[in-house]
């Protein structure tokens, strides 16, 4: 069966800077796939290119069999793929309820939206408690829950997450990662970018390691967890230095 999401020879450039240089990756239905790598390895740029927030300079992205590279983010989200951006990016001046309502802006079936909303409030009871509060006043962990809840309001088949652990207390990170596993059990497919490689490999089925804009290594999470090279790669050493 064809993968749900695939990128072939993906390139991203910002002027002279080549942030992503020929990435190939695939995510199959029902998987959690981790994309690991040091700061500046090109992970975020890859995610941005997948959801259309930056236009790939070269390469093709397919989602559910259709070519989506070059399409607008708005269209891609409507097709069932969305991103929880790095740093959460809840709308701070909007209330929790308003943030969630916007998450479902692309959906027409109101009854289905009501059901999704009930499910999300069950997953994140804190969001029900803080419903009328401005999102900017929530704690970091609560904002991350809201950002994920808001993304789920669009009823995605594939959820991309960029550094969900960033700036959160270890206990909160554990909760978020437990939640991702539960979402997978409910049938959601997940592609997660993480600097905390150990935590990500714990929940992932497979992983890719990015170095200098390219995929340096890939394989089942269990294998990569045992690999010393991964430690080097995600700590920031280039593969060349690792071999030296």
């Amino acid at each position, binding site marked *: 069966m064809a993968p749900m999401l695939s990128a072939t020879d993906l390139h991203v450039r910002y002027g002279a800077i080549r942030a992503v240089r020929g990435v190939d990756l695939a995510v199959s239905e029902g998987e959690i796939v981790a994309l690991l790598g040091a700061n500046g390895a090109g992970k975020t740029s890859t995610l941005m290119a997948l*959801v259309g*927030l930056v236009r790939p300079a070269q390469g093709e992205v397919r989602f559910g069999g259709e070519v989506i590279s070059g399409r*607008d*983010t*708005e269209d891609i*989200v*409507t097709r069932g793929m*969305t*991103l929880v*951006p790095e740093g959460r*990016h809840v*709308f*701070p*001046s*909007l209330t929790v309820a*308003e943030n969630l*309502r*916007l*998450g479902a*802006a*692309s*959906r027409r079936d109101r009854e289905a939206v009501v059901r999704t909303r009930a499910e999300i409030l069950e997953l994140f009871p804190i969001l029900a408690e803080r419903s009328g509060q401005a999102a900017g006043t929530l704690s970091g962990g609560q904002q991350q829950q809201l950002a994920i809840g*808001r*993304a789920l309001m*669009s009823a995605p088949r594939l959820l991309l997450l960029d550094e969900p652990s960033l700036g959160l207390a270890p206990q909160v990170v554990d909760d978020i990662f437990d939640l991702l596993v539960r979402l997978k059990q409910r049938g959601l497919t997940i592609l997660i970018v993480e600097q905390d490689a150990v935590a990500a490999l714990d929940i992932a089925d497979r992983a890719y390691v990015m170095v200098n804009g390219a995929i340096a290594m890939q394989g089942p999470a269990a294998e990569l967890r045992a690999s010393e090279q991964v430690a080097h790669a995600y700590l920031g050493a280039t593969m060349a230095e690792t071999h030296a």
Partner: protein
Amino acid sequence: MAYFLAQSGNALSLGGIYALLALGLAVVYSILGLINFAHGALMTLAGYVLVFAAVLGLPFYLSAPLAILVVMASAVLLERIAFRPVRGASGATMLLTSFAVAVLLQLAFQLFISTRPQVVPLPDFLTATVDLGSFAIGVNRVISVVVAVVVLIALNLFLKRTVLGLAMRAAADDFNVTRLMGIRANRVIATAFALSGLLAAVAAVLWIAQRSSVDPMMGLVPVLKAFIATTLGGLGSLLGAVLGGLLLGAIEIYLAAYLPDAALPFHGAITLGVVILVLVVRPQGLVGASRELGK
């Protein structure tokens, strides 16, 4: 006391118009970072629609909504033609674009209509006054206050209750993430311009109801005042725009009413002096640390 009350009515009426104009500037600025100086030309356009509608024999209760619709459509069209190509460019580029659009429209009014003021026929009831016991106030002023309040409440409901309104507030917070909600960026921006056109046209109708004429430069001064009002209130803040507009209207009217005759020629300078004083104390404006709706 009667004099003070009458002047307060004037202050509310003028402040309400400034508030509408400032809000029109702020709605676009909070989303695009663009200060649209062509806003004044939109006001002027509303005036000319009233003139032409009168020539065609349309009554005021039809010509006013027509002016509003034409200006809303023109604002959306301006965005398509002039501002979309420079979207995301530096603030200076967008500012210059808006100046260029303003000058072009003003020249078009001068060339194709007239440099002279055109009379806008107003219905009789607008020029009547209401007797409030100890003092009297023009019907046009009362309507101006009432309309400003109604529009502000309606806008507030739109921004709080509708998905498109929420999307506009969200876009002011974070444009890219708003697109991640599956909301069309172009739709949000077109709505912002339509709203700013609505606010400019309503303000123009109220402005003209107190002057009954329109000339190619009509919108220039009020929009300059509205820009001062948005700065006074806190650039990019919608609440700030409203407060700034009301405050500026009050400063102007009360100064004109209570300054000694000898100081009256310096009325404008003193008004701006007061504004500068407020900004020295609160450089960020009356409301908010930075942009209430953005970062």
